[in-house]
């Protein structure tokens, strides 16, 4: 039972990450009517930016968070200006295809700028284990769930009640009429891309602390299986050369 609850919390934490990424999709959809296929890549780039800051500048969690958010905002604004704005007024299908192209470009850009190996983002926080009722929960896991809930409420209230939020919905519904009312559709789009990039980026940055804590606290299926069946583990070892430890997640 306890094990189940432990798994449940870990699952919720991972779910919260996916929730953040999904919210990134939703913000862009709400204001532009587009599905952004490059959302995953944008998430990844922000995570890489956070990692770069943590290894080169400072591992301080606030420095990393500030830098990553700034980077995410810039990323969103640049994508909107360079890639999406020329597509204004073009058919939705064509624009969605452009985001697929953008995904390929961003993925390759990561290989080009950094590399294709997994890295561990190490900030000084989120590793402490809080115990209650015999269960251990990492503060990182709690933080990601709390972040999701707070952002969810904030974004909902923003889109529902604020003037900018209503304008987002208006632009998504009919951007030309929005223009006629003096709403600058491009400014609204830029805001949406920046916000979406930040939200998804937060998800990306949380990936490492949350997933690692899963791997460390809970025996994953592969570990369990290999422990019980040495023969299979040996077969797997023969088939796949062992990866160097620093690349191992």
């Amino acid at each position, binding site marked *: 039972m306890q094990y189940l609850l432990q798994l449940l919390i870990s699952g919720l934490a991972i779910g919260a990450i996916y929730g953040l990424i999904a919210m990134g999709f939703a913000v862009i959809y709400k204001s532009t009517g587009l599905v952004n296929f490059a959302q995953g890549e944008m998430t990844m780039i922000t995570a890489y930016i956070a990692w770069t800051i943590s290894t080169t500048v400072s591992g301080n969690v606030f420095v990393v968070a500030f830098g990553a958010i700034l980077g995410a905002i810039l990323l969103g604004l640049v994508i909107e200006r360079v890639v999406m704005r020329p597509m204004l007024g073009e058919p939705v299908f064509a624009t969605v295809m452009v985001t697929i192209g953008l995904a390929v470009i961003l993925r390759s850009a990561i290989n080009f700028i950094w590399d294709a190996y997994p890295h561990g983002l190490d900030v000084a926080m989120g590793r402490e284990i809080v115990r209650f009722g015999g269960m251990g929960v990492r503060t990182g896991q709690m933080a990601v769930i709390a972040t999701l809930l707070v952002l969810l409420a904030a974004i909902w209230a923003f889109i529902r009640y604020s003037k900018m939020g*209503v304008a987002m919905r*208006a632009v998504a519904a009919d951007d*030309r009429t929005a223009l*006629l*009312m*003096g709403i600058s559709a491009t400014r609204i789009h830029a805001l949406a891309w920046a916000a979406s990039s930040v939200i998804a980026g937060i998800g990306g940055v949380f990936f490492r602390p949350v997933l690692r804590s899963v791997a460390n606290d809970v025996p994953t299926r592969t570990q369990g299986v290999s422990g019980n069946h040495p023969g299979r583990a040996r077969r797997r070892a023969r088939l796949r050369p062992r990866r160097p430890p620093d690349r191992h997640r």
Partner: protein
Amino acid sequence: MPTTLPIPTCSTAPQATPAPDCLLEFRNIRIVYDNAIEAIRDVSIAVPEGGIVALLGSNGAGKSTLLKAMSGILYTEEGVIENGSIRFRGEDVHRLPPDELVRRGIVQVPEGRRVFAALTIDENLQMGGYTKTSADARERRDKVFVLFPRLYERRDQIAGYMSGGEQQMLAIGRALMTDPSLLALDEPSLGLAPLIIDRIYEVIVRLRDELKMTVLLVEQNAQRALDIADYGYILETGRVVLDGTAKKLTANEDVQEFYLGISSGDRKSLREVKHYKRRKRWLS
């Protein structure tokens, strides 16, 4: 001669000058879509302050294109003003972005109403007042509610569920939220029952008489428009073919025949009418 033409002036209109102080003016404008299709060819139109100017013409004459040029949204359809200018209060405005035009007091109610269907009436009006401060917007909204009590009754409803007439009222109300000095209406009678059209037109007249608003009324329904307009222009395939006071246009034999559906004398066969139409080109 420039020296004899005081600026701003309405004297570039091809024929009679409607009024000396003119709010909006299209000057020898030429609009091309996609670098290929000439939608407007050398059109000059003057809209005097405080009047209703009707812009008439059949489908594809270029009426809506002129309004899009006025609101600065031609670029969304690959349209370009190749020649001429649009002047508002004596200033060139055809290079300004749409939001700046709204701030200066030009607004249009687009063809087909185009209310934000998923938004409530209140939110639709709020979007009309986007360029205003929230205090100003609230004040404007109360004025709109006075003009359209129906909107007040239903202000928390989703706009898409309203009837066509109510949507048209909302579209006009939303445009009034911008506090315009020039209100352009693109076919406000489109798809509405005659009784509803009467009410919309009553409001347009009230806007001119009570709020001293200048109205540019684009219509296919020439009869209705000329009933309330002070001045009219008739557009055909991108050119102004006739203009004059509403009274003069209504009395014009050709306008009666082609736009008002009043037959003069004997009934002609369709073939004769077609032949006649081809022979008698406007401006000839």
